[in-house]
Each structure stands twice: as C-alpha cells, then as structure tokens.
C-alpha cells in the first residue's frame, strides 16, 4: 500500500492544516499554503479535513502507484496525467496498480495538492504531519521528497463506483486568478501610514518578488511610509499578516512564517482570500481591497458552512 517517487519534484513536502498549540515556544504552524484546496479535496474523498497531503511545486513529482488508490488533486493546475490520460483538479480518480501520475506543464498556480482516500500514513510529530524544513521534523524526517522515496497509505483503497462523476462545484472553489484582488482588514499600524500611503496601498498593484517562498511573499511596488517610523518590539504575527519593511516595501507572511515579528503590521489578508495569494508566484501581481473585520468574519463563517454542506453531500454519495 504505497506510492514510489520516480521523480521527487522541485519541492514536494507532506503538509496538513498546520501545527497548533506550540507558537508560544517559537514553533511555527507550517502546514499547506493553500488550506482551502486541502480541505476541499480531503472533504471530497471523505477524509478528515486535516489528513496529510502532498504539496507540490512545479516541476512536480512523478508518482508510481505500487497499489491502487482513489485520489484527488486540487490547488494549482500542473496539467496532471495518469499515464496518458489527462486529469482535472477537484475530481476523484482511481489509480490502478502500476499507473504513474505525472504533471506535464504549469497551467495555473504554484502549489498543487494530492490526497488519497484514507490518507497517507504519516506519524504526526508535535501534533501535526506538516513538514518543518528548518527544524527538520514532521512529514518525512522533516525534509522534502527525494527520488526513490516511498509513502504508505493509511489503509487499502476503497473504490466507490459513483466516484468518477463526482466533482467539487465551482461555486465552492476560490476565485483563483493570476492577478487577484485580495481582501484585507486593517493591521494595527494601518492608521500610522501617511494618507497618501494608505491610498497607494489600496490603489496600486504589487509584484510578487522572486525572493518569495513558503515563509513570506515579498512585494515590490509603490513604497509606503509611516507618519512616524518607530521602533517596535516583537509580538505575535499571523498567516497573512502584511508587514512593512524599513525600505517601504511589504512582506506578506505565509505558512512557514516566524511566530513573532517586529515590523509594523499594516494589514492582514482575510483567511478566505489566502488561497488566492498562496497560488501566486514570482512576477504575478496582487491588489488589496480593505474590508471590515465583521465582513471578513462573515466570509469565513460562510465558507465553513459551505464546506460542511460538501461534507454532508459526500456522506450521501
């Protein structure tokens, strides 16, 4: 009950929805960049939302099924094929023993997710399967996949004959785009931006710099200034916190961000729009739209409701 990595891909790791309860010790949450994609494909497969998945960047892995499995893909579209058959995201497929999953081309996005029904067999470390590459724990020995690695299944594949026609409704998917407008709420130092910088922040678009990774996305564009640049002492930050660096450029904290930071925080990306950001890569663009905390909370609660509907629907398949 396993897959073998014929090719590891440039950065393939095991992730789940993150490691919680340990931020007070400086242990960051890690976890998938696009948590929405992970929750959706796990729900589609009838898995626990938090079941470990593979997060792949492009060029992605080439995965040989040593045993049959039901699987689903989501997030970025890397033009997946099972042997020669082209596949779609957000749909359940059945991989027969001896078939190979390959990714031909980067059609959209930067992070693709693979989950199998029943889940991959990964021993959680400190409460999560997510890989912490820096502290070298979680996932498979705290590292990315290499050629020849094998990953086992939690249990034997179960094939449901109705599977092949079941696909996640487009209404549930994030509005992915190469140039998304991402909703934010004001950060604690937003009011300290000059009036012109407040306007620029919300009017201009920003380029994702090549110096962006799972820790954070560096943005380049119209520089922003505080009324009074001041020294701050470190306090907790969050996935989606937008920090203003001394040179006037922004960094958006992503899944591998440090637990604390000392730069002014001018905004926080709302959780439901983090997937739009998570699918961007170098040279993509992003714009920001300010909404209230109450609106942002409503979006989140609405998404949770919709996801529960999907889970219920899957149970009655």
């Amino acid at each position: 009950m396993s897959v073998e990595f014929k090719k590891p891909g440039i950065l393939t790791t095991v992730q789940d929805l993150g490691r919680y309860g340990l931020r007070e010790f400086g242990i960051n949450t890690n976890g998938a960049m696009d948590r929405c994609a992970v929750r959706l494909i796990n729900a589609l497969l009838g898995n626990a939302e938090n079941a470990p998945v593979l997060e792949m960047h492009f060029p992605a892995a080439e995965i040989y099924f040593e045993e049959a499995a039901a699987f689903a893909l989501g997030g970025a579209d890397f033009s997946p094929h099972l042997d020669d058959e082209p596949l779609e995201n957000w749909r359940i497929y059945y991989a027969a023993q001896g078939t190979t999953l390959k990714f031909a081309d980067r059609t959209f996005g930067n992070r693709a997710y693979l989950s199998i029904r029943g889940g991959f067999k990964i021993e959680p470390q400190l409460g999560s399967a997510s890989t912490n590459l820096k502290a070298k724990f979680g996932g498979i020995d705290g590292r990315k996949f290499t050629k020849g690695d094998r990953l086992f299944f939690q249990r034997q594949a179960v094939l449901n004959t109705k599977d092949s026609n079941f696909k996640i409704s487009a209404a549930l998917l994030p509005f992915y785009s190469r140039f998304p407008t991402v909703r934010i709420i004001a950060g604690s130092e937003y009011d300290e931006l000059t009036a012109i910088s407040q306007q620029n922040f919300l009017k201009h678009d920003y380029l994702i710099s090549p110096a962006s990774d799972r820790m954070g996305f560096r943005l380049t564009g119209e520089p922003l200034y505080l009324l009074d640049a001041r020294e701050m002492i470190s306090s907790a930050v969050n996935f989606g916190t937008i920090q203003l660096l001394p040179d006037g450029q922004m960094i958006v904290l992503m899944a591998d961000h440090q637990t604390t930071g000392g730069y002014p925080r001018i905004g926080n990306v709302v959780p439901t729009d983090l997937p739009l950001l998570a699918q961007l890569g170098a040279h993509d663009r992003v714009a920001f739209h300010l909404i209230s905390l109450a609106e942002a909370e409503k979006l989140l609660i609405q998404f949770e409701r919709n996801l529960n509907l999907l889970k219920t629907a899957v149970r009655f398949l």
Partner: protein
Amino acid sequence: MSHDSYNIYPVGVDALTLEIGGIISAEINDRAVELARQIKENPFSGLIEIVPAYASVAFFFDVSMVRKSYPDFSTAFEAVKNIVEEVFQNLAHATRRTPRLIEIPVKFRDRNAPDLDLVAARGGLDKQSVIEIFTSRIYRVFMLGFLPGFAYMGEVDERIAAPRRETPRLNVPKGSVGIAGRQTGIYPFDSPGGWQIIGATDFELFSFEKPEPCALQAGDSVKFYAVDE
C-alpha cells in the same frame, strides 16, 4: 485593579493581541506571562493558543466556535476582547511566580566566538572581562520566537551590549550564543542570523522527541557558566 493603559487589536480575523506597553521591562513582561498563564488555566471556548511576547499577549481562536459560544457579541474579536480584558484588569500587580533557574554551559573559545573581540573592543574591555560580565548575571527569558526554542533573554550589562551585525551571517552554527543590543539568545539550529556571537553551548534548546520540546519558556531564569570543553 490595574489602571495602566493597554491596547487590544486584531492580528487577522482569528487572533487578537493585548499590548501592555511598547517597552522591554521585567515588570510588564511579568504581567504578560501572568495573563497568558491565567487564561491558559481557564481557557475560553474556541481558544486555540496563547503567545506571550515582551509586552503583549496574543490569543488565537476558532472564529466559528467563539461566535457559537458567545452569541451576544457582534464579532468573535469583540467576544475574546471582552474576556481577556476582564482577566487583565483583575491581574494582581507584578506577581512573578518563582521562576525556574536553568544553568547553561558556554564555551568561549575563539572558534566558537567570532565576535568576542568586537564586543570587548566596543566596551574597552579584554575578552576575559566580557566573559565574566556576561556570566555574572541571571537573565530572564522574556519570550520565545524567531526559531523553535529560540529564547529572547535579557538584559545584558551595558558594557557588553552590541548592535546586530549590519550584514547578517548566512549561517550561524547551532548552539551559538549571541548578543543583540541588550538581549542575548542561543541559536537552536544552524540559521542565518545577525547577532554578535560570543560563545557556543551544547545545551539542547529544541528536541521534537521530548514531551516538552523546548528547554526554555517565557518567565524562566537563565544563568550561563563558562566551560572549557
């Protein structure tokens, strides 16, 4: 009752920070640690985790759960704000619990201490004096952050305080003991870093196999002592 000013603000939809003051002070940090401890002992419904820092405490929560449990508030933020504010206002003043004292051996040989000369020169001291001044104090762990198990400790004597390197090193070896301003800390892993390195320790700060993976926690006391090997 505490009448000091404080500030509560969202850090995203699912977290808020109660900021006690903008400075590094043992008295303020005591209150942050105590607030974190009290709410950890008596958590509200939907609490995920608490992150005390120098002069603030952040609370991460499950928005849907908080909304369900406290429906009288307009947002989860308002509900959590109300809860932590009340606990904070009733905190007894500066009640530092007797801290744990952790003793850490440090090697100050030249190959472990690339910046010891610089720190000594800045203070007009010889290297031995820097070591004596550094090891004579008991430091307080103000907070953990930056890397798993990395403790921000302070405050070092003015005479050995040194600013961060202008250009951070690409790799500071695991166990390096550094100074940045009046803070001191130990690198739990090989990592890029800009602190002035004055020694090294074999003391393990982080080990994921242990039930308590991090050796230090906010509020602890730390004493360094010099060893040859």
